[in-house]
C-alpha cells in the first residue's frame, strides 16, 4: 500500500455528518457560554444556559471522538497515502503556528503595558501629563502593586516574580520547579518517541506514562500556585493589570497544558493498544509537537512573567 505512487491514491472521503453536527455542538457551546456570562452579570439564573452549553460541549466532544476514530480507522485500513499523511503534517504544523500567534497577542499586551502604558500613567515622557493629572500619586512599577485607582482595582500584596537571585530562593520557588517539570516532560516524550521508533513498546508506554504524570503534576502545582496567588498574594483577575496579564498568560498556558496532557494520555492509551508503527505514528508525533510547543511557551512565560 505504501508503495503506491504518492499522487494517484489520494483518499477523498465520502460525505460525512461529522462536521455539520460539530458546528451545531460548537455553536451551542459558545451560545450557552455567552448566555451564562450575561445571566451571571445581570444576576439571573444561569441553569438553562449552563445546560445548553454543556449539551453543546458534549455533542462537540462526542463528534470529535468519532471524527478522530474515523481517521485512525482509515489509516489502519491503509487508505491514507503518504501524500495524505503529509497533509496532516502540514495541518498540525500550521495549527501550532496559529497557537503561537494567539500567545503572541498576550505577550504583546504584557510588553506593551510594561514598556508603555504603566510608565506613561506614572508620568514618564510627553504622554505623562495625563497620568499626572488623573493619578498624581501613582508611581510606575512592575510588578504593579499599587494600581492607579485602587478603589476600582484592589491592590495585590506582592508580585509572583523572582525577588532574589539565590540558590536557596530558587530551591523554594514553585515556578522554577514547574519549569524543571515541564522541560523534563519534553525530554521524556522524546524518549518515548525514540522507544517507539526502536519498536520498544514497553519503553514507549513507560515513558509516556511518565510524561502524562509530569503534565498532571505541573497542573496540580499550577493550581496550587493560583490558590496561593488568590489567598496570600492578593493577586486576582480584578487586581489590576499585573493580575490580568499574569492570569491570562499562565491561565491560557495551563489550558493548553491540560489539552496537551489529554493528548498525551490518549497517545498512552493508543500505545497500550498497539496503534503505532515505527514508520507510521503521526498521531503520536502531532501530540509530541504540541507538547514541545506548550513547553516553549512556558519558557517564554518563565522568563518574562517570573524572572524579569
Amino acid at each position, binding site marked *: 500500500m505504501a508503495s503506491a505512487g504518492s499522487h494517484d491514491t489520494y483518499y477523498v*472521503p465520502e460525505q460525512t455528518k461529522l462536521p*455539520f453536527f460539530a458546528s451545531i455542538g*460548537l455553536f451551542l457551546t459558545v451560545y450557552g457560554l455567552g448566555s451564562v456570562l450575561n445571566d451571571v452579570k445581570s444576576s439571573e439564573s444561569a441553569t438553562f444556559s449552563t445546560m445548553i452549553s454543556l449539551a453543546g460541549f458534549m455533542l462537540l466532544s462526542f463528534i470529535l471522538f468519532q471524527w478522530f476514530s474515523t481517521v485512525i480507522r482509515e489509516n489502519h485500513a491503509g487508505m491514507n497515502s503518504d501524500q495524505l499523511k503529509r497533509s496532516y503534517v502540514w495541518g498540525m504544523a500550521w495549527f501550532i503556528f496559529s497557537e503561537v500567534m494567539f500567545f503572541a497577542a498576550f505577550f504583546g499586551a504584557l510588553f506593551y503595558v510594561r514598556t508603555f502604558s504603566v510608565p506613561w500613567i506614572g508620568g514618564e515622557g510627553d504622554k505623562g501629563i495625563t497620568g499626572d493629572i488623573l493619578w498624581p500619586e501613582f508611581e510606575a512599577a512592575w510588578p504593579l502593586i499599587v494600581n492607579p485607582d485602587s478603589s476600582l482595582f484592589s491592590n495585590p500584596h506582592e508580585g509572583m516574580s523572582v525577588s532574589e537571585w539565590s540558590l536557596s530562593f530558587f530551591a523554594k520557588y514553585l515556578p522554577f520547579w514547574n519549569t524543571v517539570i515541564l522541560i523534563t516532560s519534553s525530554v521524556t516524550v522524546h524518549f518515548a518517541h525514540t522507544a517507539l521508533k526502536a519498536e520498544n513498546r514497553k519503553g514507549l508506554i513507560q515513558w509516556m506514562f511518565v510524561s502524562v504524570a509530569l503534565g498532571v503534576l505541573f497542573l496540580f502545582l499550577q493550581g496550587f500556585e493560583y490558590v496561593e496567588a488568590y489567598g496570600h498574594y492578593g493577586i486576582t483577575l480584578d487586581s489590576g493589570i499585573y493580575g490580568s496579564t499574569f492570569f491570562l498568560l499562565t491561565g491560557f498556558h495551563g489550558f493548553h497544558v491540560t489539552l496537551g496532557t489529554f493528548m498525551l494520555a490518549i497517545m498512552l492509551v493508543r500505545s497500550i493498544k498497539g496503534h503505532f508503527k515505527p514508520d507510521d505514528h503521526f498521531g503520536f508525533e502531532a501530540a509530541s509537537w504540541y507538547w514541545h510547543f506548550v513547553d516553549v511557551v512556558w519558557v517564554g512565560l518563565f522568563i518574562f512573567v517570573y524572572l524579569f
Partner: protein
Amino acid sequence: MSAAHDDHHHGPAKGISRWLFTTNHKDIGSLYLWFSFAMFLLGGTFAMVIRAELFQPGLQLVDPNFFNQMTTMHGLIMVFGAVMPAFVGLANWMIPMMIGAPDMALPRMNNWSFWILPFAFAMLSATLFMEAGAPNFGWTFYAPLSTTYAPETVTFFIFAVHIMGASSIMGSINIIATILNMRAPGMTLMKMPLFVWTWLITAYLLIAVMPVLAGVVTMMLFDIHFGTSFFNAAGGGDPVLFQHVFWFFGHPEVYIMILPAFGIVSAIIPTFARKRLFGYDSMVYATASIAFLSFIVWAHHMFTVGMPIAGELFFMYATMLIAVPTGVKVFNWVATMFRGSMTFETPMLFAIAFVVLFTMGGFTGLMLAITPADFQYHDTYFVVAHFHYVLVPGAVFSIMAAVYYWLPKWTGYMYDETLGKLHFWLSFIGVNILFFPQHFLGLAGMPRRIPDYALQFADFNWISSVGGFLFGASQLILLVVVIKCVKGGKKATAQVWEGAQGLEWTVDSPAPYHTFATPPDPKLIHAQ
C-alpha cells in the same frame, strides 16, 4: 485498494444532505459563494438604512443608537460575512482545479470551516432582535465603547468572532496544505497561477492574525465579565492597547481582503488581452512584500491617538513603502493590456474597473499615510471614501469579475452577456456616485459614523445616497444573471474564453463533480 476508495467517483448525493454533509470542494465552494451573497445583501440592506438616514440632514428614519448598530453590523457582515467567505469560496472551487488536485487536502475539515459560518452569523445577527440591541461600537469595536459602555450582546459578538476565526484558521490551513502538498507533478511553485499564489500568502496572513483577533476579543471578554483591566487605565492597562492589538490583526486583514483580488485580476486581464501576464515573477514577489509590510504598518490607523513621534514617523514611512510593490502590480496589469488584442466581456470590464478604481483608493491611502495630513482626515468621510474605494470597486468588483469569469465553468452555460454588461455599468456608475462625493465631504470635515450633519454637507450626501440606492439595486441583476445561468443558456465549451490559460480550462464545462482524480498530463502545465 479498499472498496471505499474506489467508489468515490460517483456524482453528488441527492437532496439537502448533499449540501449539509458534502466533502466536495466544488459543493463547498458553492456554499461559501451563496452564503457570501446572502450576507452581501444583508450587509447591503444595513448600508441602505445608513444612506437613507443620511439622505437629508436631521434625524428622519432611525434613532442614533440604531444608526450605530447599522454601521457596526454593516462593517462586520461585509468584512467577515461577504468578502472573506467569497474569496474562500473561489479558493475552494478553483485552487484544486488550478493545481491539478483531486480535492482540498482535508475535505471533512473543509466542510466544518464552512458550516461554522452560518451559525456564527446567525448568532451575530440575532443580537439585532435582543433587548439590548446589536453591537453599536463600530466594526473596529474600540475599547472602552466595546467593554465598559457596550450593550450586553457584546458577549455574543465576541463568541461569534471566536468561532468565525476558528473557521478562517481551519480554512486557511486547508488551503496551505492543498497548495503545498497537492500540486500535480510539474506544477512547480513558480508555475502556479497567481490566484493560487495570492491565496497561499493570504492564508498565511490569516493564520498569523486571526489568533490575534481571538486574543483581543478574549481580553475584552475578561475585562467585561471577570474584572481584568487590559483596556482600563485605572488598573494600569490602556484603551490604546486595544487599538494596537486590534490593528495588528486589522491591517493584515485588509490585505487578506485584497490579495486574492490581485490574483483574480491577474488571471482575467491576460485572458482578455490575449497576452501572457507581464512580470509574473515580480507579481509573486510584490505580493509577498505587501504581505510582509502589512505586519509593520498597523499604527497608521492610530496617528491621532497620541503615539510617540518616533512611532508616527516609522509607521508613516513603512506605510508609504507599500505603494512600491502595489505600483509594481498596477504597472504589470497595464503592461499586460498594452498592445493586447483586447475584448471587453463582463469579467474584463470589472477587472479594468478594478485596476482604475482600486488605484484611486490606493492613492487616497497614500494621502492618509502622511501623518500630519491624517490629523486632518482622521475619522472623516475621506477615510470612508478611501476604504470603500479599495473594498467595493476593489475587492467586491474582483469577486464579481471572478464570478462572471468562472460561471460558465461552474454551470456549463454562458451567462447573459447583456445583463452582465448592464450590471457592470450600473454598478460602475453607482459606485462612483456613491463614494466619490464622500471624498469632498471628508475633506470639508464631515465626521464618519454620525447620523446627522451640518447643512453644508447636504448636497453631496443626497448625491451619495442616490448612488448608494442605484448601486444597491443593481446587485439584484447579479442574482438574476446567476440564477439564469444555472438554469440554462448557451452551452459553454471547456475552453470558455478564447485566451484563457490554465488547468481549469482543460476540464469540461460544467466541471465534473470530481476532477483530477489522477493528475493531469504535465505537458498541460505551462509557465504563466
